[in-house]
């Protein structure tokens, strides 16, 4: 058990009544604005004292109102990356980075600063002041500053929300490296399902101050009943895949997953790399028989697992492709016309060009942010 929370707290008319437990990795708190995400991490950080309940990180009880325990924020050793960075304007980047070091117990080996600076690529900024940094640079320094205070848990409150698409693409790989290389558990607040799908190992779904669901990201995202909360328009499946082959003549890459072989635009990742592929429901078409003479390169056989809520023009169909879940977003008319029902064999069709860099997460190093920008355009 990494993090256990059971809190009741009211802020004006808003009531927070949240309870969940998770392991390590990257835990995403996802929900609309006003669902209580930020209140929860402020309580974990000690910025808000909850009216009732307890907060446990690892073996340490940080808050237990029943026993009158409330560890003050400066003794919690919980790093916090704020949405707006909150760098100290009167200190240089170097002084900002080292600020927490003054107070942190020195258990490090000494090259920690170098490692963090390398990880985040912030060496060249050292002598500048925060006022002279771009939004993306500020966030990287803010992440570094939190890391160097030697935290046992890192909180990130929508660290990308104030950035444009190009800057987001610049920061995301750093957060992935953080997740994969530092072993510090991260609680990541977001209202972007794309970010959550890409980053999170565990998803805590919040709605109006309550926890609607907790579990592995893919499991939660594949639940049709939760679509009203996870967001229908951006809904999609998460597929675990491995780089199988590069086709240099057409600049394509083949990925192997349980569902079958995926072809997508050339990735700069070595063969054998494990990736997470997000396939949005609105990019998936269905056919009753294997189509020929079709431009779409990804044709995956499966069976219909279930069909989501039948109101309005749209229906979501969940497919089981040899154990891998895919979701397709169709009109209710098409569902009717094709006679779709649980157990019906089906082929899922996905255009390769719908699967770009933003659908992927994993160690894809050599793609520069310039490429990501081009993809965004």
């Amino acid at each position: 058990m990494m993090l256990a929370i059971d809190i009741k707290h009211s802020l004006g008319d808003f009531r927070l009544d949240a309870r969940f437990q998770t392991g390590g990795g990257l835990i995403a708190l996802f929900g609309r604005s006003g669902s209580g995400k930020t209140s929860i991490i402020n309580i974990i950080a000690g910025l808000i004292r909850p009216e009732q309940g307890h907060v446990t990180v690892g073996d340490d009880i940080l808050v237990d109102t029943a026993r009158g325990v409330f560890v003050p924020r400066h003794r919690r050793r919980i790093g916090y990356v704020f949405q707006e960075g909150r760098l100290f304007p009167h200190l240089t980047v170097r002084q900002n980075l080292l600020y927490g070091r003054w107070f942190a117990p020195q258990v490090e080996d000494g090259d920690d600063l170098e490692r963090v600076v390398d990880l985040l690529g912030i060496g060249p900024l050292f002598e500048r002041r925060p006022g002279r940094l771009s939004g993306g640079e500020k966030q990287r320094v803010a992440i570094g500053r939190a890391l160097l205070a030697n935290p046992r848990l890192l909180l990130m409150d929508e660290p990308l929300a104030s950035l444009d698409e190009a800057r987001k693409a610049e920061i995301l790989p750093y957060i992935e490296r953080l997740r994969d290389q530092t072993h510090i558990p991260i609680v990541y607040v977001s209202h972007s399902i794309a970010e959550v799908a890409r980053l999170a190992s565990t998803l805590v779904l919040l709605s109006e101050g309550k926890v609607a669901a907790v579990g592995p990201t893919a499991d939660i995202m594949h639940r049709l009943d939760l679509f009203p909360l996870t967001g229908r328009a951006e809904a999609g499946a998460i597929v675990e895949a491995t780089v199988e082959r590069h086709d240099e003549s057409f600049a394509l890459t083949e990925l192997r997953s349980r569902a079958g072989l995926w072809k997508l635009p050339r990735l700069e990742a070595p063969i054998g790399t494990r990736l997470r592929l997000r396939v949005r429901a609105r990019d998936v078409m269905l056919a009753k028989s294997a189509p020929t003479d079709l431009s779409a390169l990804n044709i995956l056989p499966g069976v219909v697992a279930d069909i989501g809520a039948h109101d309005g023009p749209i229906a979501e169909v969940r497919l089981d492709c040899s154990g891998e879940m895919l979701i397709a977003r169709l009109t209710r008319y098409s569902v009717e016309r094709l006679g779709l029902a649980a157990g019906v064999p089906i082929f899922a069709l996905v255009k390769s060009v719908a699967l770009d860099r933003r659908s992927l997460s994993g160690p894809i190093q050599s793609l520069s942010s310039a490429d990501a920008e081009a993809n965004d355009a």
Partner: protein
Amino acid sequence: MDWMTLSPEEWTAVRLSLKVAFVATLVSLPFGIAIAMLLARGRFWGHALLNGLVLLPLILPPVVTGYLLLILFGRRGPIGGFLADTFGIVFSFRWTGAALACGVMGFPLLVRAIRLSAEAVDARLEEAAGTLGANRAWVFLTVTLPLMVPGIIAGMILCFAKAMGEFGATITFVSNIPGETQTLPSAIYTFTQVPGGDAGALRLTLVSVAISMLALLASELMARRANRRLDVE
């Protein structure tokens, strides 16, 4: 004597005025910061009362303030008597009394400027410092105080300027003793009261103008440097 050269007596008044103003400003500073923080951040009973008390010298006629000081800090006053008996600090008819009068008169300006800068400090930065392991005292010393520096400088300059020009409270409290309590304004006043004192009054007036200009320039420079450090985009 060349009319542009200051006489030794005039020099004494200039030096004394500078000494009084410096001491008044520097000794007020820690109290000013403490009271300004209390007024900016504190929520307590008597908040309005304390605020009124601090601002009082700004509104009262200076002579009234001087007379109140005489009653309280005079040799036989309740505070003055205690300080004289326990610490040997005597205010009445000493330059220390002049510094006290100037400090009290400048205090509202000092507190007001520092309070405004304290209120402008982003509390979210203090939260951030807390999550990085700094306790309240360290947060104050490493984040709050440095961010208040422009306001502190402005307050000190105002207090210093007020102290250089203070007349009513000083002359009421500690009189007009050459070499001990005769500051620039008192000396100018004395010159205007004697026949043929015009040249002396004019010379000291020019000195007064020069010092005020220098103080203003210094504050301007320091504020610019502080702002550049804070680097508002």
